[in-house]
């Protein structure tokens, strides 16, 4: 692992995660809040697909851990879900990269739904599960915003030469 390559654009990656965190914290009215896409998950998937040698399971786990602290959820809940998502995107990254954008979005729907399902299971085990269909809306909105996230992040990655 050469030092020069490693330091290349690490800041950009962390800044993008910070941005995703801020987007998921910004106060919104209750009516829109349930549609909020899972920004952090999306950014994590993007980096796992684009730079699987740099962002992987450990990053996913740590990001999820921070998300747990922010959300006040039980420590390890988001960490487990995001580590799993990072693992899956890492395993499938070569395949997903080749898909057209629409098909990619469908994969994103699957991945985000899976992460939400894991969160739901864990909440269920500790008796705090939200029993509401609107719980799944963020998966749908995440799928819808994926193309924009993808183009935006690709642009950022190329401008700053993150590799």
């Amino acid at each position, binding site marked *: 692992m050469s030092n020069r390559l490693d330091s290349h654009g690490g800041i950009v990656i962390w800044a993008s995660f910070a941005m995703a965190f801020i987007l998921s914290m910004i*106060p919104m009215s209750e009516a829109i809040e349930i549609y909020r896409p899972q920004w952090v998950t999306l950014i994590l998937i993007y980096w796992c697909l684009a730079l699987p040698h740099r962002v992987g399971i450990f990053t996913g786990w740590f990001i999820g*851990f921070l998300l747990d602290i922010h959300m*006040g959820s039980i420590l390890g809940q988001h*960490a*487990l879900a995001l580590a799993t998502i990072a693992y899956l995107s890492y395993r499938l990254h070569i395949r997903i990269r080749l898909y057209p954008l629409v098909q990619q979005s469908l994969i994103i729907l699957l991945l985000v739904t899976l992460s939400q399902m894991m969160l739901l299971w864990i909440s269920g085990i500790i008796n705090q599960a939200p029993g509401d269909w609107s719980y799944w809306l963020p998966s749908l909105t995440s799928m819808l915003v994926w193309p924009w996230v993808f183009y935006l992040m690709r642009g950022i990655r190329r401008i700053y030469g993150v590799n």
Partner: protein
Amino acid sequence: MMVLSIIMMTADHRSNMLNGVRSLFSLVIYPLQTIASTPNNMGLWFNEQMNSHQSLIAENESHRTENLLLKAQLQKFTSLQAENIRLRSLLKSSRKLSDQMLIAETIAVDLDPYKRQIVINKGQLNGVYAGQPILDSHGIMGQIIHPGIPSSTAILITDPSHAIPVQVNRNGLRTVLYGTGAANLLEVQNLPNNADIELGDLLITSGLGGRFPEGYPVAIVMNIKRDPGQPFAQIIAEASAHLEQSREVLLVIAKVKPEVEHGTTKQNAEPANKKSEGLNNHE
């Protein structure tokens, strides 16, 4: 990673071993939360700046009158308090101490939409501890669950996993109020159909359980359904505190810090005294 997560979740759920880790890493999250709340704060600041001189004078005037009224009421209150202490000492019972408060501001960030939690800008640096009750000028809001270093997370009384021991102000009937997860709504689950509770009854903290100070308003009964086929009445109450709007909150400083085992144990602790109170209701 998976095993580590599962171990961590178990540890966090069952004990308070990870509270230190949580408050340490909340230092990382705090700057992000501050940034996320800036648009909101700027909006408020802008509003304040745009207020005209006249409206400020008018506001000042109304505050002055309100202050005068409150002071007048307070005069009566002091003498009543003195009388109360005297009577209590005659009865040789313990007297109530007045509570000290710490003012904190909420940080405008959204947390999990299926929980009712808020973030405030005071933490362990200011002596905030887990289980500390928070309230606004209208009533009890909730309690601290995760005290961080510069900021803390508090659970509102409307969170579905929260329960608070209360009594009816009119007749002292004790019960437990549970959060529903819906904004401002709470429910009483364990009062029998023939319990003496009416629409518009004020529910105040009973002080049982030792977590919340006694005598603060919590909620007002807004709907009672008595179904003869059901053992318990369905009672819905609306929180007195402005849970979704309050920007300034007050933290009650206890004279003696309660020995708090864990944030989630309140779910075990309070339903436990719910049972005993459920029995007491028949007295």
